[in-house]
């Protein structure tokens, strides 16, 4: 069974540009989560999508947005990039978002560097 996949693996942008990161969940999983792992800040929750709807978002500005497609894949968009957006962006998926302790399985991440 294929795991969570993310693309691209690396992304280099300049300040003010937009970045688009993509994630494909494990087959059969309907929930997709995005996390940011920035140096010195640890792992922080960004967004949660389930069945095409945004269910929850973390404490990030509105220029961080995303969507989930009918095939349950997801896209994270970051507008007006700032230097501090440089981080590893991790996508995870789970069978559903019922809150019954479903395991979130993570992809390899996209490393975003903003110059």
């Amino acid at each position, binding site marked *: 069974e294929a795991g969570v996949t993310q693309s691209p693996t690396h992304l280099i942008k300049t300040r003010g540009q937009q970045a688009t990161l993509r994630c494909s969940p494990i087959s059969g999983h309907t929930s997709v989560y995005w996390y940011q792992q920035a140096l010195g800040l640890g792992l922080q929750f960004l967004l949660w999508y389930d069945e095409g709807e945004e269910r929850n978002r973390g404490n990030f500005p509105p220029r961080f947005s995303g969507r989930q497609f009918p095939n349950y894949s997801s896209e994270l968009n970051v507008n007006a990039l700032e230097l501090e957006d440089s981080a590893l962006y*991790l996508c995870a998926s789970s069978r559903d978002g019922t809150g019954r302790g479903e395991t979130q*399985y993570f992809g390899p991440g996209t490393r975003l560097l903003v110059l």
Partner: protein
Amino acid sequence: AQSVAQPEDQVNVAEGNPLTVKCTYSVSGNPYLFWYVQYPNRGLQFLLKYITGDNLVKGSYGFEAEFNKSQTSFHLKKPSALVSDSALYFCAVLGNTGKLIFGQGTTLQVKP
């Protein structure tokens, strides 16, 4: 508020010795607790979780964790460490509305 703490930034252990990576949590209600491992330049790999039931949870690669409600702890253990276990370990609690709340991470260094 729900939170997780990993009190040690780094744990050093000799190969073949038992290892423990500590985690304490603060939640209201029954906790859903997880351990993940991250190798350099990689994503997180799921090791094990506690939902309910036996306090001793067995997971991947010979790891286990003990849930202790009175001490609000969920320490990760392995009877005999391998050099290949050297990595960054994260404890997490599943918070309200889907998000995992992570500890700061503990670097495990296993020396031959």
